[in-house]
């Protein structure tokens, strides 16, 4: 009788990380565990998130209890705020120190600033795990791409097949569409080497997969789209959706990075309040983080505080376990995304699960457009001009009040196809069938 297959899943951002990619990192090993695999997750210490980025400890409750989690130390020098840990050079000449750190990291074999120092601990931990219990497949998710080094290390030293999961683009700038690392650069050479030997490579949307397939045609047949999806705790109830009542609440939930066109949205919102009574008495609730770190980004915070008089309020982050409740309090959802042909964002799937009207405030060429096309309650702004955003906000507000039950039901049914389970299942099944497990 053969033993259960053993998956080593490698991710930097694993619970209690609260970053956008964590939901995929949480769901993927859970899906393998549910499919009968023994799963070991290799990640960084909890302190990495509680100290530097902010943590959502409620996410740890969602880890499948059958999963073994191995944590390795991770030192995030640039975000260390306790000066006792600083060198004399950093305290006295911070700019010189920053330049030196960047130079040091770019000179390493795998030049990934801030993360490449993690590689040695990661590879050692992967070897230990494999020695204790042989690994049959490694699945590593980037960013950071340093996580892929564990997969490469086990492949090189023990012949373990691996899958690369790419949530973003390593050589591809997903916002501009430009190649940011030449094929002949260190990163370009690493990418070529890694894709050549990968059992599979996963991407979050078709535009990114197509770009990589063009760049690495030999590996194209092994490249798959595994979209993000909504998680089971967001599953809609079976009851028929009901119309909203005034005053409406427009809501945004997610990380508001510098790429998010917040200023354009605020201008559109203010225009819509002047144009239409429904929006004039509505509220706008922004939930999540302002920036990637624990301390809110000062520019975004100022923008939001200045917009308070027009009914916009920033109400801070939401624990994952509270997400469904927060969506329940919204009447219209705001999908405000940075511009980029290759940008989907994970929250588009959460939004679809709700069946609520969705206002797209992003460039129409975004990959999110492909996901939303056909959704009955989708109101895309034609451009990021205030008038176009205002028109979409007004139309969505009226739909929230007036759309009939059939339309709302159709919206919910449309979203049902995008559960995360549906996205992961085909790949989990294929890998389960293809991985040979020695007796």
């Amino acid at each position, binding site marked *: 009788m053969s033993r259960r297959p053993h998956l080593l899943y490698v991710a930097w951002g694993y619970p209690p990380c609260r970053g956008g990619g964590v939901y995929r990192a949480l769901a993927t090993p859970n899906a393998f565990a549910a499919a009968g695999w023994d799963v070991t997750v290799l990640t960084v210490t909890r302190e990495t998130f509680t100290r530097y980025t902010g943590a959502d400890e409620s996410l740890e409750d969602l880890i499948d209890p059958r999963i073994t989690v191995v944590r390795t130390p991770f030192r995030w020098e640039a975000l260390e705020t*306790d000066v*006792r840990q*600083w060198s004399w050079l950093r*305290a006295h000449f*911070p700019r010189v120190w920053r330049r030196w750190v960047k130079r040091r990291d770019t000179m390493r074999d795998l030049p990934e600033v801030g993360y490449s120092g993690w590689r040695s601990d990661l590879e050692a931990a992967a070897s230990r795990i494999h020695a204790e219990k042989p690994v049959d497949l490694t699945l590593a998710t980037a960013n950071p791409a340093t996580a892929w080094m564990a997969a490469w290390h086990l492949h090189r030293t023990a012949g373990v097949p691996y899958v690369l999961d790419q949530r973003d683009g390593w050589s591809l700038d997903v916002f501009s569409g430009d190649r940011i690392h030449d094929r002949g650069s260190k990163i370009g050479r690493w990418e070529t080497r890694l894709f050549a030997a990968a059992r599979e490579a996963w991407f979050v949307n078709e535009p990114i997969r197509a770009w990589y397939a063009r760049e690495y045609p030999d590996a194209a047949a092994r490249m798959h789209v595994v979209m993000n999806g909504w998680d089971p705790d967001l599953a809609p109830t079976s009851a028929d959706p009901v119309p909203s009542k005034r005053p409406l609440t427009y809501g945004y939930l997610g990380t508001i990075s510098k790429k998010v066109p917040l200023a354009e949205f605020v201008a559109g919102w203010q225009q819509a309040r002047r144009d239409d009574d429904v929006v004039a008495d509505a509220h706008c609730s922004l939930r999540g983080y302002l920036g990637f770190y624990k*301390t809110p980004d000062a520019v975004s915070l100022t923008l939001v505080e200045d917009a308070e008089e027009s009914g916009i309020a920033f109400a801070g982050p939401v624990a994952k376990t509270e997400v469904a409740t927060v969506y329940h309090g919204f009447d219209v959802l705001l999908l405000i995304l940075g511009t980029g042909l290759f940008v989907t964002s994970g929250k588009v799937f959460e939004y679809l699960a709700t069946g609520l009207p969705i206002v797209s405030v992003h460039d129409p060429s975004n990959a999110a457009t492909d996901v939303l096309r056909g959704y009955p309650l989708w109101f895309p702004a034609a451009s990021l001009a205030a008038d176009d955003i205002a028109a979409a906000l007004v139309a969505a507000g009226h739909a929230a009040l007036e759309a009939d039950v059939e339309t709302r039901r159709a919206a919910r049914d449309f979203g049902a196809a995008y559960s995360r389970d549906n996205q992961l299942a085909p790949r989990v099944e294929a890998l389960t069938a293809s991985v040979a497990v020695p007796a």
Partner: protein
Amino acid sequence: MKVVVVTVSRSGYRKATEDALRRWAAAGDTVSVVMLRPKDPAPWDAASTVDLGSPTTMKRLGKVGTAICRVWPGSVNRQLASRVRRSAQARALLAEADLVCGVEPVTTRTLYRSSRRNPDAPHVLGIDPALNYFQR
């Protein structure tokens, strides 16, 4: 807990610093402020304040002075550190502190020197990280 806040009184940090002082005081901590003084100083709501005077700047020399400041930007950092070193009151407060918070990035030299003399106390750069330090 004795908290010492080190600041060069930049106006953009004022509101966050005042909020932090209130939060520490509400939690029963004794808060002291060691500061380089701005042009129009407003009093801090703290148990004690050590005023180290205004920083001298070459900007008063006009365009030439401003240009020199641009290529030699560490001036305030150095001045704060040296004035703290010359102030017995500031040194005593820092030596007894349980937590030292540097408000602006230019407080790093002062924090670094103080941390070498009082290594048991966290010396944290930034108001939010300092407020959250003991929640780690």
